[in-house]
């Protein structure tokens, strides 16, 4: 690089600028700067009407240290982890099944998986509400077949929130795992069988280790959004079941404590960064299978 003349160097740079410039500018203006601003206001104090007063303060971080927030955060991580595990347990066999089908069948199955996403997610959540509400079809059926005497309150419970989260994020778990499993070379599996491994051993010693990048992408793609979600928990939880996403949303809405909301967002960012760091220890970030 040091031998290149100034002229040639300049000549190399402009096309690069043309290609990477716009997208970099876009990212800086619409991603980096807002993120830095969020970090900045997390160190400011709140105004009486909400909004931000630009006097430095550590108040938000001190508030965040209160035990109640610790509970909310552990509860949120817990439910995000449950969602992720459920998505993996359901998603992996499903992805495996699709990947073993001929290409045309597989693509049809993938389409089926995506069809629910053609409707707005609020519609899907409302559908869950209608199905499970007190005089909805599930309760009516259970009462009519005499399984229960009185309708059960399904809606506005942790259970339904979990169900909503799982159904919402399942495709994000299946797709990366599918593309990982699909890339598995058949001869590798045949070799495993030839060398005396039974199907269980092949799965544990060959298939699973080789599809780790897909599994890890699935974890990242379900865990991170599930951790930050607030729409699903708001609608299915009835504003009573609160997770960290709801708490952050409330800070910018009803409670009007923007600095605290910002500080909690910074915490979420930190958790996300930690996840990506862990991922980078297992696999290369650029190999992340996102189909």
């Amino acid at each position, binding site marked *: 690089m040091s031998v290149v003349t100034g002229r040639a160097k300049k000549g190399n740079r402009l096309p690069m600028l*043309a290609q990477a410039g716009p997208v970099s500018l*876009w990212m800086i203006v619409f991603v980096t700067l807002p993120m830095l601003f969020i970090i900045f206001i997390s160190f400011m104090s709140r105004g009486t009407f909400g909004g931000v007063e630009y006097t430095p303060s550590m108040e938000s971080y001190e508030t965040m240290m209160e035990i109640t927030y610790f*509970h909310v955060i552990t509860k949120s991580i817990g439910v995000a982890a449950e969602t992720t595990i459920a998505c993996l347990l359901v998603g992996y066999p499903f992805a495996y099944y699709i990947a073993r089908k001929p290409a045309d069948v597989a693509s049809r199955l993938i389409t089926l998986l995506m069809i629910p996403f053609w409707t707005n997610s609020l519609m899907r959540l409302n559908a869950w509400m209608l199905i499970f509400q007190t005089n909805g079809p599930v309760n009516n059926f259970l009462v009519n077949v005499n399984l229960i005497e009185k309708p059960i309150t399904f809606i506005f419970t942790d259970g339904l929130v979990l169900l909503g989260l799982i159904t919402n994020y399942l495709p994000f778990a299946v797709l990366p795992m599918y593309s990982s499993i699909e890339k598995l070379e058949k001869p590798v599996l045949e070799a495993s069988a030839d060398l005396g491994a039974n199907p269980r051993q092949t799965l544990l010693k060959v298939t699973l280790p080789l599809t780790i990048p897909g599994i890890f992408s699935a974890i990242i793609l379900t865990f991170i959004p599930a951790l930050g979600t607030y729409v699903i928990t708001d609608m299915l939880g009835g504003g009573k079941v609160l997770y960290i996403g709801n708490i952050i949303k409330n800070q910018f809405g*009803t409670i*009007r*404590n923007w600095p605290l909301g910002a500080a909690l967002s910074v915490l979420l960012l930190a958790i996300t960064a930690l996840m990506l760091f862990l991922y980078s220890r297992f696999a290369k970030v650029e190999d992340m299978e996102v189909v």
Partner: protein
Amino acid sequence: MKTKLLAVVLVLVMVFALTACGDSGSESGNAGSELNIFMWGDYISDETITDFENETGIDVNLSYMNDNADSVNKLTAGAGGEYDLIMTCDAYMESLINGGYLEELDLSKIPNAENINKAYWTEQNQKYCIPYLMNYIYVVYDTERCPIDITCYNDLIRPELKGQLGSIDGARNLFPIALIALGYDPNSTEESEIAEAYEWLKKYNDNVVAYGSTETNIVNGTISVMLTYDGNTAEAMASMGDNNTLTVAPFTEDPVQLGFDLYVIPKGATHMDNAYAFLNYITDPEVMAKNLVENPYSCPNDAAVAAASEEYRNGPAFDFDYKENVFFQEDVGDAIKTYDKYYQKLKVGIGE
């Protein structure tokens, strides 16, 4: 050389394309013919808006708030460039006026405002806002499914109501009922009283199944008691039709909250004349009477109530005899931070 030039041009084009986007967004269309309103969703009939558009040729752009705080946030951040009319409520008027966030109204441009009952429109407010609708926040229960009769706020924390209660949300809707139940001023600014109210609300919260959507939840049987607005009650009762088993709780002593939703013009609004035209239109008795069919809330416009349908005037949601025993949400100044702190604790609600 050519490619170099092309690259530079390309970068510049893309950069300017970005700024161009921003510009065209704010300046598109004929500046004289639009009106941007920020208000509650599902709170004005589509017909009222279309009729206004047809009559005046003004394009109305409606954006919706989710919370009273949204409009206060907009107003205090300087919403004049973005909106011409913003809906807010009586509780915030004093601060908003003192903060200089509102345009003073020229009432000569709103002759129909004469129809508004001055009892609901204080002298100070007359300079800055036009009341739109008002709502009682009271307790309603299903006579068939609710396990107890309810005559005061303290009944709402009885353990029999666990899993039966639905409620509207918001610090300044919930804390006043707790303060009243405890015998304090509903607009208290004393931290010790607010803290006690918080303890009361924890029991209330234990009984609550869900916040929001009260009318849907009581009709579909999820809840049997609700703290809610009169307009939502009217909708719930109407959807139950002849089988209506809902009744407004016969409170004996506790006052109920009466709140107003008002239109204000944010400082520096760009379409002032259109805003005036709209305010005069909406205060027209006939127009408002028609709007009340879809939005059956209490209305401060006496002439409109007189012109409204029999059904509206005799609706069961307005059939309660303590209409005079009300309290208003007052501006509590800096104490709002105390309310918010305890409200936050209440909502997080675990591990003390």
